[in-house]
C-alpha cells in the first residue's frame, strides 16, 4: 500500500481554495488503508421517505431477475443490477392497535424499530432500539463514530406533529434505547466538520498526547460529576444522566482511538468543505448523500441513517413544479391529478437515491465497489398515504451486502410478512446477529437465490 495522495488535516481545514470535483478519485487509496483493517467491512445505510409512495408506479410488474423498472424506479436504471426490490412487507406495529390515529408518527418510529411506539405527547416516550443502533452496539466500536444520523428537515419547531404523538416519533428513525431517539444532523457543513476537522483550535499546536490527556481529565471530571448527581436523583432523571454518560464514553473512545491511529488521522479525503443548508432541496439531499459516502469511504462509520424528510412532511416541491404540500397531496382521495404529483415527488426522491448509489458504485473497494459492501435500505413506513396502510410497504435494498444478497431482482413475500424479518437478516449480515428483532417471525431467506 502506498500513500501517494495524502492530505494533512490542515490542508482540509484551509481547503476552501482547493476544489475537487470528484473527491473519491483522490481518496481512493486512503479509503483502502482504512478499510483494509477489516478486509472490506459491510456497511448499512437506512433511508426513510415520508407519506408513502404511489404503489402502482413503484411495484415492478414481474418477479425475479430482469424486471422492468416502473416509473418511480426508472432513475435507478444505472444501478438496476444492484437492486433488490422487496414487495409485500408489513409493519404491524405501525398500525393503531388500539392507539387511534397517528399513522405518520408511527410510520417513522416503527420503520427501523418494529416496535409499537407509546402514544404520548410528552411523558415517557417509548419505542424500541432501531436496527441501525442494534448493529452499532455490535460493531460501532470498530470505527470512530458508531453510527451517524442524518436528515434534511429539522423537525417541527412548534405545534403538534401527529395526533397526540410527541414530535420525537416523527423526526427520528434511529433509537439508541427504547426511550432515546437520536437527533439527526441536517447541516452538511456541520456533518463534515464533525467527521473531519478538529474543532479545538486553541491547543492545535500542542502535541497530541498532551492534548488527549487533558481532554480525558476533563471528561473524567464531568463524568464524575454526572455520576455523583445521578446517585441523588429519581429514575427518570437517572436515565437522562445515562444518556449524558453514554455521550462522554463515546468521546473518550474516540480520543483513545485517535491516539492509536495517529497516522490514519493525518490522512484525509480531499473534499471541499460543504456549504450550510442550500436552498435547493435536491442539492441538500445530495450533499447529505455525499457526507454518507465520505463517512463510509473513510470508514469513519459503517452505519448511517438518513431521513430525506420527516414523517408527515408537508414540504412543497416547487422545484419539480409541485407547489402543493406533500402530506396534503398524499391524501389524494383517488384523484388522478394528485396521483400524478405524488409520483413526481416519489421519483424525485428516488433520483436522489440513485445519485447516492452511483457514487457508492464509483468507488472501488477490494475486488469490487463500495456499493457491493453496502446494504442500502430505502423505503417508507406507509404504503398509500391516503389509506395510511402499513402493509405492502415500498421497500428496496441496494448493494450486495458483501456478496450475501443476490440483487437485480424483484421479490414478493407473503402478505403480512414482517418487515422485521428483513431487518433481522440485515443484522446477520452486519455481524450483529440476534435471535429475533421487533416482531420478526423468521429470517428473510429469499435475499439470496
Amino acid at each position, binding site marked *: 500500500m502506498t500513500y501517494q495522495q495524502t492530505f494533512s488535516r490542515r490542508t482540509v481545514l484551509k481547503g476552501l481554495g482547493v476544489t475537487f470535483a470528484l473527491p473519491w478519485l483522490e481518496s481512493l487509496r486512503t479509503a483502502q488503508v482504512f478499510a483494509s483493517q477489516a478486509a472490506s467491512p459491510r456497511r448499512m445505510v437506512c433511508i426513510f421517505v415520508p407519506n408513502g409512495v404511489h404503489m402502482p408506479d413503484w411495484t415492478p410488474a414481474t418477479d425475479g431477475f430482469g424486471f422492468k423498472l416502473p416509473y418511480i424506479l426508472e432513475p435507478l436504471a444505472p444501478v438496476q443490477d444492484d437492486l433488490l426490490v422487496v414487495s409485500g412487507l408489513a409493519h404491524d406495529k405501525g398500525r393503531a392497535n388500539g392507539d387511534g390515529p397517528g399513522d405518520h408518527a408511527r410510520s417513522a418510529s416503527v420503520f427501523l424499530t418494529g416496535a409499537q411506539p407509546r402514544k404520548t405527547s410528552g411523558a415517557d416516550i417509548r419505542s424500541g432500539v432501531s436496527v441501525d443502533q442494534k448493529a452499532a452496539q455490535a460493531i460501532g466500536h470498530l470505527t470512530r463514530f458508531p453510527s451517524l444520523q442524518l436528515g434534511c428537515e429539522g423537525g417541527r419547531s412548534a*405545534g403538534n406533529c401527529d395526533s397526540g404523538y410527541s414530535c420525537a416519533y416523527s423526526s427520528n428513525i434511529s433509537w439508541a434505547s427504547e426511550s432515546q431517539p437520536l437527533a439527526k444532523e441536517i447541516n452538511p457543513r456541520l456533518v463534515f466538520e464533525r467527521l473531519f476537522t478538529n474543532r479545538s*483550535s486553541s491547543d492545535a499546536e500542542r502535541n497530541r498526547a498532551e492534548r488527549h490527556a487533558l481532554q480525558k481529565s476533563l471528561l473524567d471530571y464531568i463524568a464524575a460529576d454526572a455520576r455523583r448527581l445521578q446517585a441523588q436523583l429519581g429514575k427518570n*432523571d437517572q436515565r*437522562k444522566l445515562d444518556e449524558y454518560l453514554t455521550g462522554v464514553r463515546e468521546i473518550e473512545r474516540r480520543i483513545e482511538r485517535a491516539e492509536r491511529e495517529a497516522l490514519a488521522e493525518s490522512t484525509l479525503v480531499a473534499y471541499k468543505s460543504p456549504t450550510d443548508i442550500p436552498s435547493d432541496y435536491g442539492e441538500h439531499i445530495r450533499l447529505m448523500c455525499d457526507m454518507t459516502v465520505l463517512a463510509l469511504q473513510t470508514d469513519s462509520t459503517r452505519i448511517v441513517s438518513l431521513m430525506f424528510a420527516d414523517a408527515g412532511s408537508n414540504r412543497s416541491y416547487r422545484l419539480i413544479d409541485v*407547489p402543493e404540500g406533500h402530506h396534503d397531496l398524499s391524501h389524494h382521495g383517488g384523484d388522478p391529478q394528485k396521483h400524478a404529483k405524488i409520483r413526481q415527488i416519489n421519483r424525485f426522491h428516488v433520483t436522489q437515491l440513485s445519485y447516492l448509489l452511483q457514487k457508492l458504485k464509483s468507488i472501488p473497494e477490494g475486488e469490487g465497489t463500495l456499493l457491493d459492501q453496502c446494504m442500502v435500505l430505502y423505503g417508507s413506513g406507509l404504503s398509500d398515504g391516503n389509506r395510511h396502510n402499513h402493509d405492502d410497504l415500498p421497500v428496496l435494498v441496494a448493494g450486495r451486502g458483501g456478496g450475501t444478497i443476490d440483487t437485480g431482482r424483484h421479490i414478493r413475500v407473503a402478505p403480512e410478512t414482517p418487515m422485521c424479518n428483513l431487518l433481522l437478516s440485515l443484522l446477520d449480515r452486519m455481524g450483529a446477529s440476534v435471535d429475533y428483532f421487533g416482531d420478526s417471525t423468521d429470517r428473510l431467506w429469499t435475499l439470496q437465490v
Partner: protein
Amino acid sequence: MFGKKAEGWQKSGAAGWTQGGPSADRKQGQMSFKQLPVSMETDKLWLIASNYWESIDFGKRDVGHVRPFVRVLYLVAVLLFAGSVRAEAEGDYAQALVPFLKTYCIGCHGGNAPEAKLALDKYLESSRIQTDIHIWEKVLRMVAARQMPPADETQPTETEFAAAQRAIVAELERFDCSSERHPGRVTLRRLNRAEYNNTIRDLIGVNFRPADDFPADDVGEGFDNIGDVLTLPPVLLEKYLAAAESVLNEAFARPELRRRLVPHVAQSDSDRREVSERNIVQFATRAFRRPLTEADKSQLFELRRVARTAGLSDDEILKFVFTGVLTSPHFLFRVEQDPAPDDEDGIRPLNDFELASRLSYFLWSSMPDDALFELARQGQLHQPDVLASQARRMLLDPKARALVDNFAGQWLQLRDVAKITPDPERFPSFDEELRAAMLRETELFFETVIREDRSVLDFLTADFTYVNGRLAQHYGIRGVEGEEFRRVALPEGRRGVLTQASILTLTSNPTRTSPVKRGKWILENMLGEPPPPPPANVPELKDEEELLGTLRERMEQHRTNPACAVCHQQMDTVGFGLEHFDAIGAWRDKDGRFAIDASGILPGGVEFRDASELMQILAEQKKDAFCRCLTEKLLTYALGRGLVSYDRCAVREILRRLVADNYRMSALVTGIVLSEPFRFRESKGEP
C-alpha cells in the same frame, strides 16, 4: 393538555355554549346558584377559602399549618350548599352518563373479567370522582378521541358522545382539590437551544448563539422545553464541548469580556492559586445557578491542578476549567432535588435557587440575573409576594422577549411563518418583506399585551395592531409608509390575532384558504377543544370545478357524509367566519366570481355576520374556554411537562386569579408562578 382532552365544544345547545369555568357569573356579580353548573359554586367556595389562606400566608414558608383550617371552612361551605349542588350533579350524571355506560361500555368493561381490567359497572351509582379521577380522565380521553367504543361495536350518535363528554367533564370539575396535594414532578430538563444561547449570553456577556448549530430539540406537548422529550444524544455532548471551547476562546480574546469572567487579579505569586480559585468559584456559581458545595469546589480545583501540572498558562488553565463547568451536567441540566423520605406527603418546596431558575427560564429562557440570585441568597424569593413582584418585574425586562420567541412562537406557531410557501402564481404579492412584516406584527402585538399588561382577551378582540408600510398596504390601511412599525386602529372586520396575516397564512393551503384548517386551529389552540380525528380514508375536496360556487358553497355541497358533518359544522362555521381573508391574510370581497359570505350560526344558535362579530362572541361566550386553554398552554410551558389530572386544581386556581384581576396578562403569569406545581416538587409519579 390533560392528555387528549376534547371537552367543551362538543357541547350542543345554548347551555353548552355558555357554560364553563368560574368566570361567567363572577363578572356579573351574581350568585344565583341554581342556574350554575356545580363547578362554579365549588369554585366560589374555594375562592373564599383561598383568599383567607393568602391573607395570612404571605411571608411564611410553610403553608401546612393553615391547610386544616381551609379544609374545615371548605367542608362547611360545601355542606351548606350540598343539597342544590348534589341534585344537579347527580341529575347530569344519572341522565347523561349512566345510560351511556350501560349501553356502550359495560358490555366489555364489566362483569367478572372486564376488558383491560377496567370495570365501569361499579360507577352506575356514583362516579366516585374523589378516588377514581384518573379512571375518568382516561375514559374522557378515549371517548373524545372516538377510540371507544371500538369501531366494530355499536356506535353512539354524536349527540350522545357530546352529552357523555359533557357529563364526564362536569364530574371532573366536581373533584375537590383540597383533599390531596399534587404539585407533580418535572423530569430533569437539559437546556434547549434557546435556553442554551440565552444562558451563554447572560453568563459571558455576548450573544454568541452557539446552539444554532445544535440538532433540533424535539417537541412534545406543543413545546420544545419538555423534560421527558429533551434527550441528550452523543452528538449533542460533542457540540457542547466544542461550543464551550469556542465561546471561551472568543471571550478570553476580548479584554472587556475577559475582565467579566476573571475579575480577580493576583497581586503576587503567593496568592495566585487562591485568586485563581476565587475566579473559578465565582464563574461556576453563576453557571450552576446555585452556591457550590465543597465537593463541587474540590473537583474543580482538582481540574485546575491537572491543567497546571500540564504546564498551561494561567488563562489556559481557567479556560480549561471553565470548559469543564460549561459541559458539567450542573450547567447543562436544571437540577432539582427530589423530596427526602421524611418530607411530608413526599412533597418539598423548591429552594430559593431552584425557584430563581424556574422563574428565569419561564420568563426569560435564561439564567437568573443578579437580583434573583441576591433574593435567593437572602432566602426571600420563595415568599409569595416576593415571587409575584419578581415575576412582574421580569415581565417588563427586555429579556421577556423570550416569551414571545419561545412561548408565542410555539403557541401561535409563529416559528412556522418562516416555512410558509404561498403559491407565487396565485399570490404574487407575497415576498420575504411581507413574510417578515407578518411575523413582526404578531410579535409586537404579543409584546404589547405583556408590556402594557393588557387583558388576555385582547388576543381575540383587540381593535389595534402594528403595521409598517408593506403590511399596511397588504391590509388596505392608508397613511402608513416606510419600514417602521406603528400602532394603528384596525378597520371593521379585523380583530385580534386571529385576523392577523401571520396566523391566517399559517392556517391556509399554499393555493387557497382552508376554512377547515382555520377552524380546527382555533378549536385546538385558542379554545383547547380539538375536534375528534377524522375517520380514515375520507375523500378530499377536489380543486376542479365540478361543484359550483364559492369554496364555502362547494364544501357545503360536498359535505354529505353525516359522520363528517357533525364535527365539520363546528370547525367550518368558525373557519368560514374568516373567509374575507385570503390565503395570505389580505381582505377580499369575492372568492373568484362569487361574493363572500362570512356569516354563520354557532352551536347554540348564536349568529354572527363577520369576523369582528365572531371574535366578539368568542370573547364573550367562549371566554372561559379560551382562558383555560391559554392557562394550560402557559403552565405546560412554565413547568416543562404535560399537565395531568391533578393539575386541574392548579389551573382552577390560576383561572380564579386571572378573572379576579380583569384577565390581565400579569395575573396569569403570577398565578402560574404562585401555583403549587411551580413552587413544589413531589416524589410521586416516579415510576
